[in-house]
């Protein structure tokens, strides 16, 4: 086992385990920390691990997009919102009891365990043959041919979201 651990496969497995640990530790920090800015840092850590998992799923393009969009954009936007809406979650006045926390963690563990049980019980059928490699060039071609309608719709959704968020954060502010 020790010899095989230092082979190429062993090193790959170690890097994969590091990515999994990063993902789960980041997610736990994100939900367990009482200070919001630490939660966002945990979220960024979790997204970093998810990008590594995407790399192992044979998609370096999606790994880069995950870093650019999630870590580079969404986390920064959340940090800006935390700066604008400072909260006092650190010194809570109405802390829900320990019993509620135990019940919540038990039910969520049961939920995750049920999904894992279903996923492992089902024997997934292997696909016969693949039609292409899934490279970046083929993604771009599929995005502009067979998925062009949803591509246009998603840009429309983004435009509406930009205008809507501008309108929402503009209203209620008194004119200088």
């Amino acid at each position, binding site marked *: 086992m020790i010899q095989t651990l230092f082979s190429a496969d062993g090193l790959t497995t170690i890097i994969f385990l590091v990515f999994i640990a990063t993902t789960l530790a980041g997610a736990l920090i994100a939900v367990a920390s009482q200070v919001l800015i630490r939660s966002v840092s945990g979220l960024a850590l979790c997204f970093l691990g998810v990008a590594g998992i995407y790399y192992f*799923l044979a998609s370096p393009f999606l790994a880069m997009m995950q870093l650019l969009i999630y870590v580079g954009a969404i986390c920064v936007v959340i940090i800006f919102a935390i700066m604008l809406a400072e909260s006092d979650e650190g010194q809570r006045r109405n802390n829900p009891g320990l019993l509620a926390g135990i019940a919540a963690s038990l039910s969520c563990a049961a939920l995750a365990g049920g999904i894992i049980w279903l996923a492992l019980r089902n024997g997934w059928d292997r696909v016969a043959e693949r039609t292409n490699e899934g490279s970046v060039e083929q993604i771009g071609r599929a995005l502009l041919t067979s998925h062009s309608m949803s591509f246009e719709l998603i840009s429309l959704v983004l435009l509406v979201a930009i205008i809507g968020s501008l309108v929402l954060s503009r209203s209620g502010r008194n004119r200088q």
Partner: protein
Amino acid sequence: MNPLMLSNCLSTYLIIAAVLFGIGIFGLVRRQTFIGMLISSELVLSAASINFMAFNRFLAPDPTTGQIFTLFIMAIAAAEAAIALSIILAVYRNYRSIDTTDLKDLEG
């Protein structure tokens, strides 16, 4: 099962995604501010993305479909984060709080 083939097995990714989903739901239940709930919902979305990418890698005949779908999930998540954060800012401007228990104007 050979432990060195861990990264080449569909079940590994499904288990990671299920655990991430459970953590996200736990955060949605437990967090008491809107931004905390938004962070937890991002965890749930990334769990769904990992599932799509895993099925795309191991089972799909056309491996571009899952990657494009994951890209769309990212775009939807970005739009959702922008809208949710501006709603949170509007709520903060009216109530001076982003605590979920402070918004009880409609409470009977």
